[in-house]
């Protein structure tokens, strides 16, 4: 009994089902307005009304949808990387620019203090060598600022930064797969290395994944983050061997993952049903050898890392003398020094030369022979990479719960973009963003909880935010340092408030577990995952609401204090903002104008509205209606549930107390501001904005397929055995467990019987009924089936004993059970029994399940407990025990 419970438990803990089927296959050709909004949401850090307008006004008349052309343009869009000398700065260049602007007297490119180090630096002066006099610990704030520039756009700088939205979105998605974070010393101080790393992701966002991996593994930030910097060959004398950190995570997190996958992302299983590991500890040990010999460019020696040495803006440099060659005494047992074996025993086992020539130059510009690119190629070509990367991208861009088919369609393009190239990220993005499944997410199980950071960027972009020009700089040590931040966003540590921020994950496993399942019955029963939900917890809610409230309040407390709030100029009397406050200034002019115009004030200006303008209830209601129309078009980019909308309007018109306004001349303005502030805050922090639900109602019923013949013959007296069936739904996938079967078969009486199968999906669509006809006759030329209790132990006097307990079988399916009394038993298909017991109705159990019993009344689970005094059922539906009458 114990072992059966164990196996039952292990069933409980095994992998999750991928439940979803698609509504339509392949690429989308035509887009509705809603589809257009969906495309913009997926491809950017937040749609803007201007973007929608531009798309609508696209003049090109041809057969290709405007949306597809827009997407293709994004995929060819110019970037900061075409011309390093133009005014469109990369993340790294922007960090440099900010640092030198805010501290113009500091020489961020200082020479090394002594001649020896200086000569090794070969005349090159590294940025931010953490030399005395620099306030380098602020560089992470500048790196974050550069990130905001690229996510939001910064019109104060120029019109180009942030215009390559899809590229920047892809870089952000990649930063959650190829994770680097400021949490490892000294990356928080040498944060220019984080910016340089982000540039690698952004520059290769539409390139090739193998090229990207080559850069990532040579990058200083990754080298430090996963300690491959100064990883050196084994030494028996020093008793050291190569560091395995990067080798492991390279396989586990960046390329193939721990289990073998089918192309649709599901796990391959062996004959015992277990997952198949992709690599062994030995593979990691071998891979670690390849990753030896790399150090930061311009690092003076091979010793402790420290924070002041080496360049974080060049790829690492290779040192052949430190590279593993397996010639040290440590490898005295090694058969084939200099050759390693990866995936030994698998069909893709590969031997690699540790000194194979690399295809890429190292950070010093030299050609190298480290075997690195050869090893990368082996991993890159592993069949897992396509589904592994595709699944990650879909979960980030589209939905938490893609169907296996979706993953397969995208992975297929990863494997071959159509012209024989593997790893073409541009093609992968294109096929993913144009797949119909992205536009047909089901209302019930589709969509995803938005990442908190994307909620913020969507809001800020929709509300045209800009940095506050009078934000104090923290770098005020020297007189000639500017007092204010210069055209610079400042929100340094979003991870403290909204639980995530780019390049600030706690460790290499990113912000959340990709397969996180929130503990909720419906979610679990449908096998849904929601990675973002892992970081949404009780203190997230007040934190995020306070942040939004602060940002919205900034409009009144800062922008409106300018003499020209519309253009954000005339700041002489406007207040200063502290450096540690998020300095986003949004624009509420448009929603205010809509509200005020709705009250009959044609100018729409705040100055023109009076308190009395709000006295007419009907007009006020109309005006608020207009305001919500504006929100739908400019912020939500989707219609708001009408019930919620009307409740909001009720709140705005009747819910606020306007007596607080002290001066009559301010009353109109104050009321207008309060209406907009409160409605915006509640709306943007509501589930309507925080969660991307699907939009498509499911109207297709599920389908049932019988296993075995739909017409069967049985001999009179034999036991009827159900031969099985399958059921599936276009949205909800496997429905087998939910099928209802009705109909009688009495094999003790000759005749024709009919069994009907039907199932209902969660959306309420009922399948067409499927029937099986059973004919019971006196004679049938088939082998009689055994009685179900064959295999039970006979204990004399006609009694049997098996897992069910003690009983005596009678004819026509009845038994007398010592615990339950008279029971009518029918054998079921899954090696179990249906038992009819008076007052209990139909119960089911099997040798594997007993003493858990399924009761059709409810339905629900029961647990049978027998003690000396009494027998009990523990009833799960009521969480209580009840005695069984005998």
């Amino acid at each position, binding site marked *: 009994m114990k072992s059966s419970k164990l196996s039952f438990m*292990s*069933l*409980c*803990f*095994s*992998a*999750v*089902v991928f439940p979803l089927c698609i509504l339509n296959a392949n690429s989308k050709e035509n887009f509705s307005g809603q589809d257009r909004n969906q495309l913009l949401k997926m491809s950017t850090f937040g749609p803007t009304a201007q973007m929608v307008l531009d798309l609508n006004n696209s003049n090109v008349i041809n057969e290709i949808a405007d949306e597809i052309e827009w997407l293709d343009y994004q995929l060819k869009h110019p970037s900061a990387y075409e011309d390093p000398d133009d005014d469109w700065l990369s993340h790294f260049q922007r960090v440099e620019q900010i640092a030198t602007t805010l501290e113009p007297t500091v020489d961020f490119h200082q020479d090394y203090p002594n001649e020896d180090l200086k000569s090794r630096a070969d005349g090159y002066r590294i940025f931010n060598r953490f030399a005395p006099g620099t306030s380098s610990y602020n560089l992470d704030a500048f790196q974050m600022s550069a990130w905001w520039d690229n996510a939001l756009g910064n019109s104060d700088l120029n019109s180009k930064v942030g215009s390559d939205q899809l590229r920047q979105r892809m870089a952000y998605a990649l930063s959650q797969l190829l994770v680097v974070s400021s*949490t490892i*010393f000294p990356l928080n101080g040498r944060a220019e290395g984080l910016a340089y790393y982000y540039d690698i992701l952004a520059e290769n966002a539409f390139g090739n994944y193998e090229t990207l991996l080559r850069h990532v593994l040579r990058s200083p930030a990754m080298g430090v983050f996963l300690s491959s910097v*100064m990883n*050196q060959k084994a030494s*028996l*004398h*020093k*008793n*050291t061997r*190569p*560091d*395995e950190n990067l080798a492991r995570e390279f396989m*586990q997190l960046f390329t193939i993952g*721990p289990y073998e996958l089918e192309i649709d992302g599901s796990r391959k299983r062996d004959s015992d049903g277990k997952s198949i*590991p992709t690599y062994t*500890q030995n593979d990691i040990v071998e891979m670690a050898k390849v990753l030896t010999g790399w150090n930061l460019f311009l690092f003076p020696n091979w010793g*402790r890392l420290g924070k002041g040495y080496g360049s974080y803006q060049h790829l690492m440099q290779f040192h052949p003398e430190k590279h593993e060659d397996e010639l040290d005494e440590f490898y005295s047992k090694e058969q084939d020094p200099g050759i390693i074996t990866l995936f030994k025993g698998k069909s893709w086992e590969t031997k690699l030369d540790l000194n194979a020539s690399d295809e890429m130059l190292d950070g010093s510009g030299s050609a190298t022979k480290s075997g690195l690119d050869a090893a990368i190629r082996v991993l890159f070509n592993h069949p897992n990479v396509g589904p592994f990367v595709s699944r990650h991208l879909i979960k980030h861009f589209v939905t*938490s719960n893609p169907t296996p088919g979706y993953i397969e369609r995208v992975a297929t393009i990863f494997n071959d973009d159509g012209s024989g190239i593997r790893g073409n990220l541009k093609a992968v993005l294109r096929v993913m963003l144009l797949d119909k499944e992205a536009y047909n997410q089901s*209302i*019930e199980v589709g969509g*995803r*909880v938005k990442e908190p950071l994307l909620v913020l960027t969507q809001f800020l972009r929709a509300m045209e935010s800009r940095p506050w020009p009078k934000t104090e700089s923290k770098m005020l040590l020297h007189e000639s340092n500017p007092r204010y931040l210069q055209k610079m966003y400042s929100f340094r540590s979003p991870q403290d408030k909204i639980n995530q921020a780019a390049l600030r994950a*706690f*460790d290499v496993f990113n*912000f*959340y577990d990709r*397969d996180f399942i929130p503990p909720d019955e419906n*979610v679990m029963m*449908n096998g849904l995952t*929601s990675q973002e939900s*892992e970081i949404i917890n*009780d203190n997230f809610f*007040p934190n995020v609401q*306070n942040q939004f409230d*602060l940002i919205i309040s900034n409009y009144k407390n800062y922008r409106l204090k300018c003499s020209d709030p519309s253009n954000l100029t005339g700041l002489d009397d406007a207040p200063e903002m502290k450096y540690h406050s998020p300095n986003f200034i949004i624009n509420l002019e448009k929603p205010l104008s809509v509200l005020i115009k709705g009250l009959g004030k044609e100018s729409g200006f705040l100055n023109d509205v009076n308190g009395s303008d709000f006295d007419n209830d009907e007009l006020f209601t109309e005006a608020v209606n207009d305001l919500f129309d504006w929100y739908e078009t400019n912020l939500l980019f989707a219609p708001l549930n009408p*019930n919620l909308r009307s*409740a909001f309007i009720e*709140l705005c018109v*009747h819910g*606020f107390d306007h007596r607080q306004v002290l001066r009559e001349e301010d009353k109109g303005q104050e009321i207008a501001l309060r209406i907009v502030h409160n409605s915006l805050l*509640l709306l943007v922090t509501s*589930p*309507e904005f925080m*969660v991307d*639900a699907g939009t498509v109602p499911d109207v297709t019923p599920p389908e049932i397929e019988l296993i075995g013949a739909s017409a069967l013959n049985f001999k009179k007296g034999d036991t009827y055995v159900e031969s099985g069936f399958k059921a599936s739904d276009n949205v909800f996938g496997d429905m*087998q467990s939910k099928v*209802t*079967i009705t109909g009688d078969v009495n094999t003790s009486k000759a005749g024709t019987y009919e069994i009907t199968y039907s199932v209902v999906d969660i959306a309420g669509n009922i399948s067409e009924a499927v029937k099986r006809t059973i004919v019971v006759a006196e004679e049938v030329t088939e082998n009689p089936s055994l009685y179900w209790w064959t295999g039970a132990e006979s204990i004399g006097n006609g009694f049997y004993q098996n897992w069910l307990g003690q009983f005596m079988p009678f004819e026509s399916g009845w038994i007398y059970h010592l615990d339950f009394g008279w029971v009518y038993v029918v054998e079921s298909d899954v090696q*179990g029994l249906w038992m009819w017991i008076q007052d209990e109705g*139909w119960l*089911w159990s099997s040798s594997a399940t007993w003493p858990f019993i399924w009761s*059709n009344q409810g339905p629900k689970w029961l647990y049978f407990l027998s003690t000396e005094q009494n027998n009990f059922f523990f009833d799960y539906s009521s969480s209580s025990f009840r005695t069984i009458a005998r």
Partner: protein
Amino acid sequence: MYSRRSFLKTTGAFGLSAGCFLPILSAKDVPNLPGGDDYKALVCVYLHGGNDSLNMLPPADAANYQEYFDVRGGGENPEEGIAVANTVFDLPDLANKKLTSSTNPYAAEDNESVGLKGVYETGLGLNVNGVMPEIAHLIHNQKIKIISNVGNLVEPLTKEDIASVHKEKPSYLFSHSNQRMQVDIGRADLDSGFGWAGRIADLWFGTEKYDAFPFGMNFSLRANGARMLEGAKTRPYVVQPNPVAFNKMKLMPTGGTPWVQWDENLNRRSMYHYLNGASPINPDDYSYTEYNNWKGYVPSPLDLRNRIPEASPNYLKRVYQKMGMNALRTNDAVLAALGEDLNFTTTDSYGQNLFTVPEEEVLGLTYNNFGSLIQNLETITKMMKVGVSKGYRRQIFLVQHGGFDTHGSQLEVHPRILRELSLGMAHFNSALEELGLSEKVVTYSTSDFGRTVSSNGDGTDHGWGGNQMIMGGGIDKSEIIGKLPSLAIGGADDYSEQGRIIPSIANIQIQAELAHWLGVESDYLTELFPHLPNFQNDSSDATSSFVNLGFSS
């Protein structure tokens, strides 16, 4: 006429939920709830990344130490070694709070030597690293048991067993995420599941005195990495040291001039409820109209009662809605709990108030990011105080202390986090003693794994068995439980050739004993930890797997 259904044959969430609602097996107490009126709490200090416990508690015995030094001493390049020196320091007079930056034994010229300078003797087979005088002190005062060489196991293993296909090893050894998962779910053969402490909470959920409204039984100090506390029905409450109020939303009838703003706040709150698919508030419960009459005009409380709240049809949105309501419910309570200052008379090693984070000058150590463990333990103390005062019976806390994955820069990083661990445990113990809770609270450390005996030049890599510490619960004395393994490379306890030591005690043996101390009946322990029978001397008695930690009750 009868109807039947068929069943999921293999995995399926249905099996998931059903299987995890297992009742007790003995019929006498229904349901399985610890008897009595006592309070007990368990605090898990999770050392994130795999602690190098060999440098935390280096071997004391000469022969063992030699083995250790042979591997870690750097061989012909002693300056590149990472072994802690065998220099014995006198234990500073912590009882009189006399530790200062000039009298601390571990002070060194350069940062990297701090953690290697020397040790305190304990009289046991392991010494304590010089940066942890408080731990040494606690050991001397019979307050800490050391579990030697503990790690994830499915069944006991010897070196010979490693190659055998008949013996089951934990799956995905040396992988952080898998090993961490196995620590959290209480079994070393799977890669996902519910946390064992979460399942205890599920078990006791809804019963009298468990129902620690509004928080629940389990607490995590961080949003993610709390799987140990996540059950099928229950989730841990995530608590920060400095929680924020919903005050900006103005959803509560607080602040401002009451008769002017309170109704408005309630209206906003009504809307918040409505957006989250929850029943609207009843305005009659919150009427302040007697004040309003003074001013004449009353904004009528927004009556959304006629509107039926709509749980979203989207399942993920519905989860979000529920979380939003829960956050509102718990916010007031957690602010009250954490707003209260704890005033202790006991002071720390430096003569400062308990839970003060010492400055660099005081510590004699430079650091970047120090003190979150200390702050978190203070938060835990506050939540415990609330728990006791409200009559909660059981609480389980998880605090993560980070940065132990010292592949590189081990000498810079490790001493600092060990120092904080030492201070944290000492502060916490002093606080609990002063509150009279020290026998009711067990604090224990655990980690992904130990680390390799061998070095990679700059640090150590993922190992397997490691040492852990247990404090509290009225333990009888300090001692080392379990044998000290051979540390020789390729030696009798080495998994292979890099010094990854095969554990001699399984994590689940410790976890089961802790669960039992909390009040889980021995019959149920195998449901929590299915491989426990592999470690039982007596197959019918789960408690025979225990190492006997010596709790007083």
